[in-house]
């Protein structure tokens, strides 16, 4: 990878490493600020969803990508954040207060979930987090005095310091939140805490012998990740304006993990790529359902075959129930086998290809296989 030559320690602390980065991020910022003018209502609301998913993606990348802890229960943290928002708004508590409160509450819950992580690793942790998510889902459905049970709760868009936010205002709120969290995460990951996370991920034994306390840092990673997800939950609840327990199931947690797998687990940029990808799946599928049968029929009838029959067959395939989860499953498998570092990894490869042309070697990014040794004795 291209690294500008550093001559000074202060260069290590800079947010942007090259002038090119400054310009490209400035352009991105201008674009995002102008988005409400450029986009219609539908697109703007999709962008808000991308932002919310990206926040969850950041949370998961901190936890899974940088600390190496697996969680198949992040939908539960999102749910806790969302329900805190819904409950507090009903009680008339101002947005700023419950936004912070939701983050703190999910942070504490995340800390508690992180406790078993001290003794568990890998698969056991995955199972523990998903058991936790099931229990939370059940509590949400049963604790009717607070959560209104399976009937769900309605929410309005938040008031910010007495100012009623419209769709555009809410967009700017989300943008501010994601920017703050992104900058916070970048800084966190190059702080001593972040380096301890990475050390724990790479080798717990080595980290321990360097004086990193696994208990402290694993629970901290869980708490931070959960708190960020809780904040995303507040925004999610306001965006959807209606929440009920069956929205926060295992499949939502799997969607979140897909953000990370598709985007790329090894860099925060991946969260954004993955979020964009995941939000685009639904509109793309809808377009496919509408247009693909007609398109195929045209192609087939140009070839002089029975166009109507083909149209019917294609329509049956694209309208089959469960097509979305089939595609999701195939995407997961595809990315894990062929693109383990996700879209962010592909982006790095393309950049390197352009820079080194024509000397690029595919093996530069070849992952080393580790032949399996028992984890039981860990």
């Amino acid at each position: 990878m291209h690294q500008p030559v550093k001559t000074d320690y202060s260069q290590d602390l800079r947010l942007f490493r090259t002038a090119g980065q400054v310009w490209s991020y400035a352009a991105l910022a201008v674009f995002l600020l102008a988005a409400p003018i450029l986009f219609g209502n539908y697109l703007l609301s999709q962008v808000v969803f991308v932002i919310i998913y990206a926040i969850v993606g950041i949370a998961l990348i901190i936890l899974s990508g940088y600390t190496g802890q697996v969680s198949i229960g992040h939908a539960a943290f999102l749910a806790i954040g969302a329900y805190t928002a819904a409950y507090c708004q009903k009680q008339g508590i101002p947005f700023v207060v419950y936004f912070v409160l939701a983050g703190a509450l999910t942070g504490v819950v995340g800390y508690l979930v992180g406790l078993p992580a001290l003794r568990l690793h890998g698969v056991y942790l995955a199972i523990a987090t998903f058991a936790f998510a099931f229990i939370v889902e059940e509590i949400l459905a049963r604790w009717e005095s607070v959560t209104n049970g399976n009937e769900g709760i309605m929410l309005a868009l938040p008031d910010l310091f007495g100012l009623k936010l419209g769709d555009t205002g809410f967009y700017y709120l989300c943008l501010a939140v994601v920017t703050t969290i992104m900058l916070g995460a970048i800084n966190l990951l190059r702080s001593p805490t972040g380096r301890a996370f990475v050390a724990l991920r790479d080798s717990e034994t080595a980290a321990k012998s360097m004086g990193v306390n696994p208990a402290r840092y694993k629970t901290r990673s869980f708490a931070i990740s959960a708190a960020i997800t809780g904040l995303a939950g507040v925004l999610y609840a306001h965006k959807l304006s209606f929440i009920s327990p069956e929205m926060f199931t295992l499949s939502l947690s799997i969607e979140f993990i897909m953000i990370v797998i598709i985007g790329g687990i090894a860099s925060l940029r991946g969260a954004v790529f993955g979020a964009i990808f995941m939000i685009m799946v639904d509109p793309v599928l809808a377009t496919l359902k509408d247009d693909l049968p007609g398109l195929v029929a045209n192609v087939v009838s140009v070839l002089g075959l029975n166009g109507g029959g083909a149209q019917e067959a294609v329509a049956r395939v694209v309208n089959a129930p469960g097509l979305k989860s089939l595609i999701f499953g195939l995407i997961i498998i595809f990315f894990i086998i062929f693109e383990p570092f996700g879209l962010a990894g592909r982006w790095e490869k393309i950049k390197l290809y352009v820079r080194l042309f024509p000397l690029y070697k595919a093996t530069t990014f070849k992952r080393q296989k580790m032949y399996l040794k028992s984890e039981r004795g860990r």
Partner: protein
Amino acid sequence: MLDFIQQTIGGIALGCVYGLIALGFVLIYKATEVVNFAQGELMMLGAFLSFTFIATLGLNYWLGFALAVVCMAVLGSTMERLVIRPILGYPQFSIVMATIGLGLVVRSLAGMLWGTDDLRIETPFTGGVFKLGGLVIAADSLSIIVATLLLCAVLYWFFRYTKIGIAMQATSQNMLAAYYMGIPVKRIFSLIWAISAMVACIAGVLLAPITLIHANIGFLGLKAFPAAVLGGFSSIPGALVGGIIIGVVETLSGFYLPEGFKDVAAYVVLLVALMVMPQGLFGSRALKKV
């Protein structure tokens, strides 16, 4: 008191189902240290195949059963070849996610092929009951208990005494060293997936009269996780014992505790078990040498 015994027996029957599914997890984990989140979906696929053979094609129950088991063995090793083999040697997280993806694919394909209605097969046990004093045991449940015990015994023997079984244990402990010792590691992987898919298929077919067959019985697999963890995840008798504990706890909490506890009882037991003794009831505890 009679209620309690009746409920307990019901719980044991349910527990055997969990144990049977958990056996599939345990087999794959024991031999390859891969946790297969698609185990429930394999079970569902087995049940659907047996439905096709028995109800649609009208074959004899036992013949259809055997055919479904053979088909599942082939499918299991094919899945291993296509999805798991390319990512062997990568972090466990990747493999777990790949099996989740595999589960999604299998579930939605089954939904497309067999529809979303509840399907039912006639078995030789349907409707039969055994009466013992005041207790009533359905023949379906009894068939599950007997089959689980038998399978456990056979598989325990297989891992303990046969050459291939011991080779599988060696593979799980250290793949590279096993390879050096002349164990065909790749073939072991295919084989264990085939065996595990067969066990899943047996579970699916035995379960069919109780739960009916539909695309969502795969979720039962998630209920079997607590059973496997409780049993130590790599112990065959452990899966059975863990399954029975989970089954009994679930049934009793459904009977004695307020509504809602039944669904989470298994997971509460799981979390407690993980905190108190993560190695499970039958798991071995070893320390890592650096």
